[in-house]
């Protein structure tokens, strides 16, 4: 009998022994599938952390930070700017290799990448780069960028974030459409396998310029059902898990053994965008009624104090230029009803809404739906899967759009993408202006080129006031990011902020 027990034990231990040889990090994500992992196309929550594992910028956000103050050299070792702030010279690190056999990273790749990021055919962030007059390679290790006008945060555009990620020119040109699922960068990890609706697997980049990563392999698993993902984490199948952004989840997992729950910045601002061209929301009074009917404090209450706070403006708090004292419409059901009656809808209005089935977003929207109902505003939800939701709201099909987003921490980016008329959905330069907002173009444009910091802030403040007053959108609440890890996972830095909406896995990250 004993012998059998030993044999059984040996059999059981065998797979563990082989697993030891290779350090595998299992990460669970709340999504059914990847969106786009081409760094210049990656806009969804599930895509951004992954991009940060594969790519570098000329500068980078310090791992674990989401602050513009903490940018540090990455592919560029040093840089200088001209006195007028329009010409920037970057000196590149030598001997940096791309993943696989795609060769050394040179100025040519940087020029190609930034131009690619500025082209709306290949990038979702093209508008951000329109400020660049020229980008040229002075020599293989020097890049010169000339701006049309000085801007508040040029380094942000060349950081390891959105369009600032540097891709391999050769690979992008040779792989064509395949680059979308097998992008090539210089980061500590590279994609080796993609199983649709299941997982994305990364292998360490042995030639990473900061050193060989301590983790050999990352398996990024798509588990959209909250309960299944939580169970997978509790049972030890996952080492790191995307946390549910709610109080109970944080409380429960904080109590679990060998688990660290981290609540990190940046806050994702949830906004209800109101389509100002669609009946009945084309009437400002109806939009005001919606604004009065929303009870921000209650939404934050449902979400829980440790992860959610009521929104303060149409730009997330803590961004450069956010008006922290913006005047929002207070919660007042009587006023909402009066405004509806005045607009000719004494019996209330019906608004057709396309809504994602993603639980966190659907739940928030159900709270809003219930609040608006008290004022006689009936939100009729058409619940569709997340990809369909993203596609259809961009076709201008929804009366109101619930959207939660964090952007580069400068007011300009948020205002430009959500409230500048150039970004209106359904137009060639569309980004995410779902409301067809056009009341603050002048201020947004003026602020972008205003050299005086105080005046610039004033312009942004006016822009926010105008957007709020015209009710292009109703700010709802701000949600911090929640991630949990097993105690044996050491990120190699203190995880306080995640500009990439998830932990950056660096060469120093380890699993003991």
């Amino acid at each position, binding site marked *: 009998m004993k012998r059998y027990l030993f044999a059984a034990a040996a059999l059981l231990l065998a797979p563990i022994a082989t697993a030891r040889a290779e350090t595998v990090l299992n990460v669970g994500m709340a999504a059914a599938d990847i969106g786009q992992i081409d760094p210049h196309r990656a806009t969804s929550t599930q895509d951004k952390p992954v991009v940060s594992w594969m790519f570098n910028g000329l500068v980078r956000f310090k791992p674990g930070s989401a602050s513009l103050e903490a940018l540090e050299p990455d592919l560029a070792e040093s840089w200088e700017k001209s006195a007028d702030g329009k010409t920037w010279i970057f000196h590149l690190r030598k001997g940096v290799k791309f993943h696989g056999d795609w060769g050394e990273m040179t100025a040519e790749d940087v020029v190609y990448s930034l131009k690619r990021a500025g082209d709306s055919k290949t990038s979702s962030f093209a508008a951000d780069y329109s400020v660049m007059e020229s980008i040229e390679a002075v020599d293989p290790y020097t890049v010169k960028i000339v701006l049309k006008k000085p801007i508040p945060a040029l380094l942000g555009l060349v950081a390891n974030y959105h369009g600032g990620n540097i891709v391999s020119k050769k690979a992008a040109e040779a792989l064509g459409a395949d680059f979308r699922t097998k992008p090539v960068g210089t980061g500590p990890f590279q994609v080796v396998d993609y199983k649709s609706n299941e997982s994305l697997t990364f292998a360490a980049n042995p030639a990473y310029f900061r050193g060989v990563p301590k983790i050999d392999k990352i398996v990024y698993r798509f588990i959209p*059902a*909250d*309960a299944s993902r*939580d169970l997978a984490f509790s049972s030890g199948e996952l080492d790191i898990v995307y946390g549910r952004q709610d109080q*109970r989840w944080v409380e*429960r997992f904080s109590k679990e053994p060998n688990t660290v729950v981290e609540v990190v910045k940046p806050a994702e601002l949830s906004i209800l965008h109101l389509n100002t061209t669609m009946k009945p929301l084309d009437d400002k009074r109806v939009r005001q009624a919606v604004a009065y009917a929303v009870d921000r404090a*209650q939404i934050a*209450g*449902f979400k829980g104090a440790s992860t959610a706070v009521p929104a303060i403006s149409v730009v997330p708090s803590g961004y450069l230029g956010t008006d922290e004292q913006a005047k929002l419409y207070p919660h007042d059901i009587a006023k909402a009803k009066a405004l509806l009656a005045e607009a000719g809808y004494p019996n209330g209005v019906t608004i057709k809404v396309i809504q994602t*089935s993603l*639980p966190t977003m*659907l*739940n928030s929207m*159900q*709270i809003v*739906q*219930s609040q608006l*109902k008290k004022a006689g505003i009936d939100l*009729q*939800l*058409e*619940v569709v899967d997340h990809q369909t939701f993203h596609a259809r709201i961009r076709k201008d099909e929804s009366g109101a759009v619930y959207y939660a987003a964090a952007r580069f921490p400068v007011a300009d980016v948020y205002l430009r993408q959500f409230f500048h008329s150039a970004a209106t959905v359904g137009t060639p330069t569309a980004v995410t202006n779902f409301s067809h907002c056009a009341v603050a173009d002048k201020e947004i444009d003026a602020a972008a080129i205003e050299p005086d910091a105080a005046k610039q802030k004033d312009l942004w403040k006016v822009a926010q006031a105008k957007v709020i007053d015209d009710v292009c959108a109703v700010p709802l609440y701000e949600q911090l990011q929640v991630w949990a890890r097993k105690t044996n996972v050491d990120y190699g830095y203190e995880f306080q902020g995640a500009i990439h909406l998830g932990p950056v896995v660096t060469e120093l990250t380890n699993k003991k």
Partner: protein
Amino acid sequence: MSASSSARRNTVASRALRSPGLAFGFVVVVVMIVAALIAPWASPFDPDAQDVMLVLSPPDTTHLFGTDAFGRDVFSRILWGARISLTVGFLATAVGVVIGTVIGVVAGYYGGVIDRLVVAATDVLLSFPQLIMGLLLVAVLGASLTNLVIAIAVTAVPAFVRLARGSTLAMRERDFVDACRSLGYSDLRIMFLHVLPNILDELVVMASLWLAAAIRTESTLAFIGLSVPPPTATWGGIVREGFDNLLDGPWLAVFPSLAILAVMIGLNLIGDGLRDASDPRAPQ
């Protein structure tokens, strides 16, 4: 109607009454139907009223089945959910039975080309699993009450076509049909006044089983988010929302699941009981 058939019907009825399973199933289903009917008056709370102070509170005397993540009363939601689940189930089955039976009787009675076409068509439809078929249709039509009924009814039609056709084929050769023909009755009259009553037993048995299947399909579709949009409560929808908070509030998923289970068992007992009672080979 022939004398033998009405005599048989009497024994069917008496046997049915003596079957405890059938009686139990009948009681369960009737209770559910009554609950659904009186939901507007019987439910203690507004099923859609949210309360931030009562998020995920466990079952107690005020909230019998606890509250969900929005502080809504689960008991009230289950009562209201019964309306959707049972309505969809009954309507879809009724539509399926009527259409399927008509097509089946006509095909069986006339035979020939019509029959062959109908059989081929039902074979194609039957080759799709019921759930997949419902899923496809709802996905294409869009999720709404009417579309759910249509989608589930379509999945039920081929089964009833087959059953009605098979039984009609057997009836067609019987003497009383020949008698009707020689009396000069029209085909329509023979099919629906003489053949149909004689195959009704089997259809009713089948319908009670399909009713269970229809309710189950509705719940499954609701569970994967393809049912009436929120905030309307449906059993499958409540289970799904409860599933998100399974570890914090198991009662959320347990109670609606029990409701589904009870109706399933009830309907299956009725179906089994009716089948046993109408089986002429069963001991008297």
